[in-house]
């Protein structure tokens, strides 16, 4: 049994803005985002860390926000799909998802995109098999998997072109 009336201090930076409040310790990062901050781009698909729909970046690393209690990561930097690109712009991964039809219903999409953005940093993008392996924590019931791999490869290819251009 948890006592939902107890509150603990929570300090975070979310999409570049600082957030402070006293929260019951049972509030997950996911429920904080969705229910208290109206950042509903981060989705709840299982609440058990099994589907990846709630993936966000915490200090630049991809995590499942349903498995993190909000009060347990003091002063962390949280990035959600709403904070991925500045207003009016798209992150290349967001554009690639549109170009390659990498979603249907759109519900797992923010989690897939956040996971894919982190994957680029992790560098596990050498082959389609490697991308598949390292994206397998993000389920898609519409079955847009081929498109998602295409989108990630599109971004990787453009990055390589840009790097080649800089080198030349």
């Amino acid at each position: 049994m948890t006592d939902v009336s107890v509150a603990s201090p929570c300090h975070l930076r979310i999409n570049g803005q600082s957030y402070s409040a006293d929260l019951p310790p049972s509030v997950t990062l996911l429920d904080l985002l969705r229910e208290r901050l109206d950042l509903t781009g981060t989705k709840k698909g299982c609440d058990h860390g099994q589907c990846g729909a709630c993936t966000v970046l915490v200090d630049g690393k991809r995590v499942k926000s349903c498995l993190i209690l909000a009060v347990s990561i003091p002063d962390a930097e949280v990035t959600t799909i709403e904070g991925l690109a500045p207003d009016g712009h798209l992150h290349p991964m967001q554009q690639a998802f549109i170009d390659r039809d990498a979603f249907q219903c759109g519900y797992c999409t923010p989690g897939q995109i956040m996971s894919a953005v982190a994957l680029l940093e992790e560098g596990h993008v050498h082959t389609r098999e490697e991308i598949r392996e390292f994206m397998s924590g993000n389920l898609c019931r519409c079955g847009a998997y081929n498109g998602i791999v295409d989108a990630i490869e599109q971004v990787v290819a453009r990055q390589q072109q840009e790097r080649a251009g800089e080198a030349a």
Partner: protein
Amino acid sequence: MTLHSAKIGQPVSRIDGLAKVTGQARYAAEPHPAGMLYGFIVNSPIARGRIEAIRDEAARAVPGVVEIMTHLNRPHSALSEKSYVDGLGVPGSPYRPLHDAEISFNGQPVAVVLAETFEAAREAAMRLEVDYERWPHNADFEASLHQKYMPGKTRSNYVPPKSRGNAAEAYALSPIKIEGRYHLAPEHHNPMEMHATTVIAEDDGTFTVWDKTQGPQAVQAYLTSALSLSKDQVRVRNPYVGGAFGSGLRAQHNVFLAALGAKMLKHSVRITLTRQQMFTHVFRPEAVMDIALGAQPDGTLQSMIVDGVTDTSRFEHNMENLVIWGLINYKCPNATADYKVAPRDTYTSSDMRAPGAATGVNLFEMAVDEMAYACNMDPLAFRLHNYSDIDAMHDMPLTSKALKEAMQEGAERFGWYNRPMAPKSMRDGKELIGWGMATGIWDAMFSPTSARATLTADGRLHIATAASDIGTGTYTILAQTASEAFGIPIEMIDIELGDSTLPECPTEGGSWTAASAGAAVWLACQSLREKLFRTLGKSGNISAWLTEGLSNKTTVLQDGFLQDKGADENLRLSLSEALSLTGQDRLEVEETAKPGLRGTISQMRKARFTHSAVFCEVRVDEELGIVRVTRLVNAVAAGRIMNPKTAASQVRGAMVMATGMALHEESLMDERVGRFMNHNFSEYHIPAHADIPDMDVLFVTEKDKEVSPLGVKGVGEIGMCGTAAAIANAIFHATGQRHRSLPITPGD
């Protein structure tokens, strides 16, 4: 830069893509009215019995709890079972949530905690104590088969099997026979978005209900009837739906309970089911099919006998078109089929993507593969040898059937013709390689649908219909349709869907939306253009070239401008200028697309289906039995393809789900308590990235002006039909081992 009109058939990217990739698209659990209460459902842990007592002191003591709603204190809801009947047409007595103390299935809601926060509601739900009187139950499908029956009243879409010839005698006389029991495990839809409802209690006493549904108007009708509300008191919205696959065809209990709570407290309420609770309602029924096939040594089918059973609850008679598909699709002089349902103490099974056919086609196509091998014939050659150009069960011609072309194009793309016939003849290290194929068939349906088209002062075209885009690409294909039909760039079009107040549209499902809503939008846009020309012609203040053009019928509307065919490009008029010349600030039409007399006659005289040919390569680890699907090719004949990009995604998505059907998905019943026990994603496996290879979808040319006004057949289900069988048949080819039960684990 001039923007150009889009056309039906172009690979336009999804127009709802921007909202979806930025997290701005709002799903059912995402509006947040001020002061909203959170509802958390408490489920019955027993399958049959009655509630003896509810002790709620501990639950009510949780800070933030506002009310605990049970059958004892709920507000008035309709008494008659008839008031709970929905559009799906499942005969029987529909489940009435929180109606009384009786328990009819495990997971049945017995209470809803309403609290100020989600955490408080969940905590209180865990503290609620309910005592039950337990009655004996049966949740075992095998045991229920002894009670199988044919419902006195059948489901409205049920197609009774029709026998021909003398199948029993022909089977007895056939020199080559196969016979077996084929089985499919129950499956759960598991859309990524869990079922959820947010009821907004508006200031004027009405309710705006954001629900995860495939039919906002069906939910509105259900709520007004079941909660004794008037039609103008309830508006249902579902602009974005996080997948459904049939789970949103019926109003699920979350929407009833959220609305009941809102009615009780006159307060906004949200209920979101947990992933575990997603296993307490609709699922694809478990099925068995006894199939016996007889043939001549040359591979000519002589007899087909199909006997199928699917499960249902004790209170409703859910039915599927399970046994008919082989009888329709194959030429064979003698055939018969029988179908029954078997009751058990669960919630009612219901439609999941390609209901009936996903099970019936795949299991039958596994038997066909066995028969081909019994005749020592290549499975593709066997199917071509027994090919039917008509609906062989009804002895009716078809509007079109490019299945032969699909078989040939698919086989070439896959490289099928190099296939060694013998099983277990290809290997790579410790992996056995197998190639299998199957064909698919699904209905091509068209339902009357209305749409509204409005031209506004800013020169934009607004399209509205109560269709639902559940990931199907409906927003995009309707925009393409409007763009071509009206002559306006897609960027100048707004599509409004997912609202019960919009023009009437049937619940999304069965692959009929593209053909039906597409036809309605086409009609409305053509009608609006005629109205614009007519109204302009009557207004006195238009320039000479336009007056002349309109009277000579040489004025065209293209890329958002009125101009004279072949005239100077400078002589053109934008839509906002044109509208202002009419002296009106908007022009609007509403049209309904219907089959009409010709269409109705055609529907009586000709059958209509989509078809497909699926080819698969698997690799099976010989020691561990691990199956990897390494190649999938699906050649689809589905009439006119409105958008090859979104259509291919539809087919691929169904192939992914069919891969789950073949290899992963199985809801396992704990018969002692009557509950599906693997009720989460780590125990109910759906395919993940690593399970799915690159899939090749091709659409074969199939011109069919008769099937629907736009020649469209729909592509939402066809990818399910045949793909699981192709995988099963490939596993046989790899291992030499036959499996007749899905999902397959080699070595079992």
